[in-house]
Structure formats: C-alpha cells, structure tokens
C-alpha cells in the first residue's frame, strides 16, 4: 500500500467483493474445460412493492441447502464438495422442530468456512424469533428447497414454476431467498 493511500485511510486493493464470475471462468479455463459457463443476466428487473407491513405478512424461506442424507457420504461440517448430496427437484418440508440441512453439495468457500453452523445459511431460528416477537406476522408452515441446477432452462421452466406453486399454496406474502 502506498504511503498516500495509507494516509488517506484507503482499504487494501483486494478488499473488495470477490469477482466470482472472473475467478470461476479463469479457474475452469485453466483446468482445461473449454466452453465457459454463461451466467444469467437481464437488463430488466421486476419489482413488486409490499402490499402490507411485515408484521402482517406471512414470510416464506427459500434455501439451496439439502436435507441430510446419511447414505450419501460426508456432508459436513468440514466436508469436501459432495456431488452425491445434490438434489434436482424442488422439495418442501415443515418448519417445525430443527430441520437438518447441509450445504456440502454447494460451492461454498471451503478454505475459510466449515459449514458447522446451520444458522449461517438457513436463518429459520432467527425467523421464528422474529415471528414470536411480532416483527413478522407469520411464517409459512413449510420451507422450500431449490435445486442448484446447472441448466438455467431447468431452473426457469421447472423449479421456478414449482416454487411459485408451493409458495402460493402456503399463502406466502413475501419470500426470503438465501443463496449460498
């Protein structure tokens, strides 16, 4: 860091959000995988204003995490990437109790995090507290699992449609979507 940037209180050059698209594209090209992945991108973005305050709204939680499947190998904490734990269809389950969900099938940062605490990727415990405190009106009785399909066509034509149906069936007013 130069004397000037230090005296002005600038952060370090690399202290910016990680440029994942560039990193991942370079990484797989270097590993010898030809055609780079084409990331989804849109010029237009939809927007639906809230119809009512959150303390009168029913909140849905959408996750990419997978239910723990004991027969599918190491799913953590600290598990290496585990493609066997992937799932390919939308699923739902009750929010009652403490669902055991894992992220071993997702490209999380395995060097700097171990996936030891479910609350870092599945904030159900916090949402239940907020419901009990009246910050949000209610939670839907189920949460919703979204596959991390590589095919954007499958995500759009199948997963998005099924998730909307499930959320509507549970009369969700708003959705919190946790990406991992």
């Amino acid at each position: 860091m130069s004397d000037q940037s230090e005296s002005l209180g600038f952060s370090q050059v690399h202290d910016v959000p990680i440029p994942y698209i560039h990193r991942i594209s370079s990484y797989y090209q270097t590993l010898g995988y030809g055609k780079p992945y084409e990331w989804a991108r849109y010029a237009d973005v939809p927007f639906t204003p809230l119809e009512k305050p959150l303390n009168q709204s029913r909140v849905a939680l959408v996750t990419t995490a997978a239910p723990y499947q004991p027969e599918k190998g190491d799913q953590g904490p600290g598990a290496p990437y585990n493609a066997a734990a992937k799932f390919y269809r939308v699923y739902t389950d009750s929010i009652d109790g403490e669902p055991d969900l894992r992220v071993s099938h997702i490209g999380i940062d395995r060097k700097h995090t171990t996936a030891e605490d479910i609350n870092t990727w599945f904030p159900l415990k916090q949402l239940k507290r907020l419901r009990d405190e009246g910050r949000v009106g209610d939670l839907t009785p189920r949460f919703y699992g979204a596959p991390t399909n590589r095919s954007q066509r499958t995500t759009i034509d199948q997963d998005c449609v099924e998730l909307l149906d499930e959320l509507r069936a549970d009369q969700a007013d708003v959705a919190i979507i946790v990406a991992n």
Partner: protein
Amino acid sequence: MSLIARHLEENGIPTVVMGCAKDIVEGVGVPRFMFSDFPLGNAAGRPNDESSQAFTIELALKVLETAPAARTTVQSPLTWSDDPGWKLDFSNVEQLSEEEIAERRRAFDEIKSVAKQRRVEDGVADSA
C-alpha cells in the same frame, strides 16, 4: 436463486435475496439484495455468532421493507475478518502452482462423474 427471485416477483411475491456473491446476483438482476461480504456459505451471518445472524436477518427485512426500486443492493457493514486476505483465495488460479492445478483437474473429473451418476439415479439423465 436470483432467477427464482425474479420469477416470484413477476408473479406478485416481493422477495429479498441474501447472498455473498455480489457480481453473480447483480449480474442476473434482482429486485432486492442484501449482500454480506463473507465467504460463500455465510449469507445469513457469521458462524456461532448469534448477534451477527440477528443483525443480518434484520437488515434483510429492512431491505425488503424499504427498497425504493429494483436492483436495490444493501451491503452489510459486518466484516469477516480484520485481514481481507481471505478474498484472494477462492478459485484464484494466480495463487495455484502447476502441481495444485493438476490435482484439482483430477478432483474435478471425479466430481463430475459422481454428479452424473446422481442424475442417472434420479432419472434426470440417461446413462449414455
């Protein structure tokens, strides 16, 4: 997940995405995005840190309530570490030796083979 946010929103359900990959989510374009500058896998707060998790979900709710327009991104003020060096590591070929690259190529071939087997088992791909 960004595609899901867009679809729900197009059909009348307001959403907020919580995530750690700023360029990917903003590239797709979502209505509301609560960005945590944390390693992937920690979109809902720091591990074993309940106050961080409570702060993060509350900020997500505020983004949901107050975003004035589409493509609203709010970055959490929380930081992962006093040392930002962790940001240099993820999938960064500039940090890898030839030997490490060769090892990762081998590991990736294995992962692809397991994933293919899963798809066959789930009936979403044929075994050809």
